[in-house]
């Protein structure tokens, strides 16, 4: 086990010996996070409710097979992500590849705006909706990496395990996803000036 995974598993209270834990408390701990992830990946509230529920049922059914090689959280997200991919296939929606453009030319001086300072982030409702919209518009592949890393605090290795991707792809997708979100914020700030 890699050190990053070890520390994450150790800090995760619900990951301790899950076979003998009340599965209800596992659901309590992860239902909102998992539902939020699935909802954003599928862009469909109703389907997300269904998929999240199915993910927990499958996890419960296969709890005995959980071997602790990754964190319980990563295992749950892996199940949920696989179900999302199945649903997308059924809907014939491709998890399309995004061109990895950097958009360097758009950056011109806007990073000096105070709202880029995470310490003094005042996330106004409007800015929040810009970020939310930008995340929603990402392709599912980019979105999955961004949400797992920036929202769920997973390490690159863990994300690579959940999404079954090479480490380099995780990093490049994270870069591309952040760039697209930042691009949307830049456009918004520029409009505001």
């Amino acid at each position, binding site marked *: 086990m890699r050190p990053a995974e070890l520390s994450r598993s150790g800090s995760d209270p619900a990951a301790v010996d899950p076979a003998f834990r009340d599965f209800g408390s596992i659901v309590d701990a992860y239902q909102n996070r998992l539902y939020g992830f699935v909802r954003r990946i599928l862009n469909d509230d109703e389907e997300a409710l269904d998929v999240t529920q199915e993910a927990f049922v499958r996890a419960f059914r296969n709890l005995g097979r959980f071997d602790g090689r990754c964190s319980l959280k990563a295992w749950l997200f892996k199940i949920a992500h696989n179900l999302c991919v199945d649903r997308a296939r059924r809907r014939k929606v491709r998890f399309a590849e995004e061109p990895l453009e950097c958009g360097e030319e758009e*950056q011109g001086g806007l*990073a000096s705006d105070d709202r880029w300072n995470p310490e003094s982030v005042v996330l106004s409702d409007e800015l929040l909706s810009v970020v939310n919209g930008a995340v929603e518009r990402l392709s599912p592949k980019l979105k999955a990496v961004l949400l797992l890393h*920036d929202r769920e605090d997973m390490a690159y290795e863990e994300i690579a395990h959940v999404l079954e991707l090479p480490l380099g792809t995780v990093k490049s997708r994270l870069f591309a996803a952040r760039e697209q979100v930042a691009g949307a914020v830049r456009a918004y700030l520029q409009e505001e000036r």
Partner: protein
Amino acid sequence: MNHRENRAVREWVRRLPEDEPGLAWRASLNERLAKEARGRNRRAARTAGASAALAVAASLALWFVVQRTGTDSRLEAELVAWHQSAVAATDLSGPGLSPIEWRPSPAGADPWRSVEEELEAL
């Protein structure tokens, strides 16, 4: 993208509002899990031997824990969900019959249909 923008995006994504799947959803999940646990116990009971007995014991232990700790929350979830459905029914049915008042006519069937039933009927 510079380091500052990277950190800003990360912070914004982290601060996006959290989603809640709702109490009715949770009650329905609890039902499915309880059903799953019962099915598992029945399957386990069919197999013989010491290892099977251990598996049954483990399953039973889990099932009892779910039952014991789940009873209160399931009860609460149902009471809250019934109230929510009374409120939604007011908005939707107006003077018409709300689901709380629904008593099937003598020849009528159970008006609730599960999605699974509908899929099976296809």
